[in-house]
C-alpha cells in the first residue's frame, strides 16, 4: 500500500503529519499550563489526543490506504473496545468516590 503513493507525495504527507503532530503537542502543553476551566481543558485535550492518534494511524501506519475490513478490525478492536472499557467502569468509580467508608 505504501508503494501506491509516489515518493514525493509520501515525503510531503509524512512531513505534514509530523508538523501537525508537533503543533498539536505544543497546543496541548500550552493549554495544560493555562488557567482555563476544567471542562474547556478536557474539550481541547481529548479531541487533540484522538486527532493525533488518527493521524498516526491513517498516515504513518497507512490505515487510510488499507482495505476496509482491516481498518474496521483495528478501529473496532482498539478504539471501540477501549472506549467501552472506560465508559463501563467510570460510573462505578464516581459512585465509589461518593460512598461513605465502612466503619
Amino acid at each position: 500500500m505504501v508503494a501506491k503513493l509516489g515518493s514525493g507525495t509520501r515525503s510531503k504527507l509524512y512531513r505534514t503529519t509530523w508538523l501537525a503532530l508537533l503543533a498539536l503537542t505544543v497546543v496541548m502543553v500550552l493549554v495544560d499550563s493555562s488557567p482555563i476551566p476544567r471542562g474547556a481543558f478536557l474539550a481541547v485535550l481529548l479531541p487533540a489526543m484522538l486527532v493525533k492518534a488518527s493521524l498516526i494511524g491513517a498516515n504513518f501506519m497507512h490505515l487510510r490506504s488499507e482495505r476496509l475490513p482491516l481498518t474496521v478490525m483495528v478501529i473496532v478492536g482498539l478504539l471501540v473496545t477501549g472506549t467501552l472499557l472506560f465508559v463501563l467502569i467510570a460510573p462505578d468509580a464516581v459512585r465509589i468516590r461518593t460512598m461513605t467508608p465502612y466503619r
Partner: protein
Amino acid sequence: MAEAAPQVLERWSGGVCPFEAGWRKVMMWTFIITDGLLFAGFLGGYGYARIMSRQWPDQATVFDLRLIALMTFILISSSATMASAVGAAADAGRSVLRWLLLTALGGLLFLGMQAYEWTHLIEAGARLDGNPWGDPLFASYFFLMTGFHGTHVALGVVLLTTVAVRWAKKLTSHEGVELVGLYWHFVDLVWVFIFTLFYLV
C-alpha cells in the same frame, strides 16, 4: 436472517485473504490490537483509580512538563523517520539504513530521558507502594504504565537494529521494514494516550 451481500460472501468464503494483505501484516496488526488492549486495560484501571481518588497529586508539581514534552517530540520525530524508512524501502532506496538508525537513536534518547525521569522520581521518594505527593496508586500507575511502555520502546530499538542489519545484508525485504514500522508507530500511538491521560489531564 438476511442473506449476506454477495461481495461479503465472496470475500469470506475461503481461498482469498479477506483483508487483502499479506498474512505477516495481518498478524502484526492482530498483535498490535491485543497489545493495545493491554494498554487500554492499564489506562482504564488508571482512570478508575484517578476518578475514585480524593487525593490524586497535581502532575505539574511532580513532573517537569518540559522534559515530557521533549520526550514526546523525540518519539513523534522518530515515528516520522520510521515512516520515511518504510517509504524508502518501498522504493528500494539507499536511505533506508539511515532512517532506521535515526529511528533507533530517537528510541534510545527517549529511553535515556525516561530513565532520568524515573531516577528523579525514585530519589524524591516514589515507590511502587507509595509516594510523597498523595494517593499511593499514583506512583504505582506511573511506574507500571511508563515501565511497560519503556519496555516496548526498548524491544522496538532491538527490532529496529535487527532489521537495519538484515536490510544492510539484503536479508529482508520492504515488508520486514514495514512490519517493524507498524510496531514502532504503535509504540508512539500508546505514548500519545499516556502523555495526554497521565501527564496532562
